[in-house]
């Protein structure tokens, strides 16, 4: 369940139908008020709390070994998850948008499932599937493979949670682009892979990039699911969001917010990139 992503343009009707000035001022004021309370203050809070004990401590909290380990694990997870889901997204979008077949609507709805599932449940299902108490899990355990409470568990839970992002971006895009260019390509003698590589892929590169960015942002920030499958073991199965939680629960607020500020930066960068991509796409139309 992701909101649609279209570039908004200002749309103002003629002078006679404009809202009265009083209404305009009121609504603009209310909007700012809402943003102040719900957006700006939280942002400001993060940095004020993080820097409360001075910038040196801020930087120390970030480069502290456990924090760095958390960063490494988070990035490693993203590096595995995003390409995998991107490949899936491309494959699924190709099958769905370039062909007609029965059950397509069902398939597309199934792709949305992870969005409908609470993150905690997303973690639970993998505990039930490959946890050490399950038949599958204990078999793996005998072969020295631990999934839950270890990196693979975090990877696979994140895989589940970020599963739909790239596909959902690409499917409407490729459906809107139609099949004609691909049909033209095959009448000219191109083989399957050539069609995909030369024709389809360049046409969707912005959508693909955008989907991968969303996927990355979500995989870095995932909390609930990872909370379940990791053991919160510092230095080993801690991701950045989990680290933030640990520090907070230890009342180490400054460090907690310091690490959180990394995530805030990432979120702001994601939003900025999204804006840039949308503007580019909008200008290209």
């Amino acid at each position: 369940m992701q909101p649609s992503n279209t570039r908004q343009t200002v749309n103002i009707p003629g002078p006679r139908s404009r809202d009265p000035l009083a209404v305009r001022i009121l609504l603009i004021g209310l909007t700012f008020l809402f943003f102040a309370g719900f957006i700006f203050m939280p942002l400001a809070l993060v940095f004020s709390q993080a820097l409360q004990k001075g910038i040196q401590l801020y930087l120390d909290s970030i480069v502290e070994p456990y924090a760095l380990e958390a960063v490494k694990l988070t990035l490693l997870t993203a590096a595995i998850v995003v390409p995998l889901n991107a490949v899936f997204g491309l494959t699924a979008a190709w099958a769905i948008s370039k062909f007609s077949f029965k059950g397509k609507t069902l398939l597309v709805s199934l792709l949305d499932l992870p969005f409908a599932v609470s993150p905690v449940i997303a973690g639970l299902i993998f505990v039930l599937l490959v946890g050490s108490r399950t038949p599958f899990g204990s078999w793996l355990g005998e072969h020295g493979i631990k999934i839950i409470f270890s990196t693979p568990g975090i990877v696979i839970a994140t895989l589940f949670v970020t599963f739909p992002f790239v596909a959902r971006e690409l499917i409407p895009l490729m459906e809107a682009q139609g099949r004609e260019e691909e049909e033209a390509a095959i009448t000219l003698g191109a083989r399957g892979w050539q069609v995909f590589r030369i024709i389809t892929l360049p046409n969707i590169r912005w959508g693909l990039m955008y989907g991968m960015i969303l996927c990355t942002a979500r995989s870095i920030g995932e909390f609930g699911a990872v909370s379940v499958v990791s053991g919160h073991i510092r230095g080993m199965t801690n991701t950045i969001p989990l680290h933030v939680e640990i520090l907070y629960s230890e009342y180490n607020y400054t460090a907690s917010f310091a690490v959180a500020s990394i995530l805030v930066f990432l979120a702001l960068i994601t939003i900025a990139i999204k804006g840039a991509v949308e503007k580019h796409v909008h200008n290209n139309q």
Partner: protein
Amino acid sequence: MTLFKGKQRKILPGFGLSMGYTVFYLSAIVLVPLSTIVMSAFGMNPETFFAAISSPRVLASYKLSVSTALYAALFNAVAGFLTAWTLVRYRFPGRRILDALVDLPFALPTAVAGICFATLYSPIGWLGQFLSKLNFELINKPSGIVIALIFIGFPFVVRTVQPVIAELEPEIEESAQSLGATRWQTFRKILLPHLFPALLTGVTLAFARSIGEYGSVIFIAGNLPLKTEIAPLMIMTKLDQFDYNGASAVAFVLLLISFSMLLLLNGVQRWQQKAYQ
């Protein structure tokens, strides 16, 4: 004359491969893991199952998750709608920045949002100070949960309604005006009904998302049993106690609620599409 299974042959290449991989990946990552909940729920002793899902604590958690999600969604219906309207219809300094920041709750990790709101509204927090003077407490109270869920659901409403407002044709309002309607009448009788399907879709999205929300809520909620324990936390607690059956049972019910939301959402979206043909 040649007879062939022409209908089966696909024109563009790669259908078998892409479809096969899609179904495989979908099953391995999503369907099979999700089925564990179902299998677990059905594999349980019915008594165990019902005991798990109907204990007072668990029932309270369902009620809490659903009710807070509902309040937040309703608030967002108004706030999100007004924000979308303002962003599309008015020009003012900072508009672009606000427009971009609408996505913040969507892009920000839930844990960060969680600690932010917990700190902001704590008795010594920036906003919490004010509110405690007014005898308003948000920490360890359901209302705190609602605040966090408002934050989470906000972009869903705005981003769903915004495109529809942007696509309104000015001519419609102008002709209503020229026929003598006041601004308010035009809004109430013409614009609002037109925008309603999109609004409903956005609200349903926000609601469905908020029911399962975890990270942004647990910090401000205080997690007091029977009072501010959300359903996902119940699952977590049972897991910590290795009560896998209990966890699965609660999760199963929560999944049922989520999936019916998804079905409802599909229905609403299809209605929306028909309304905008």
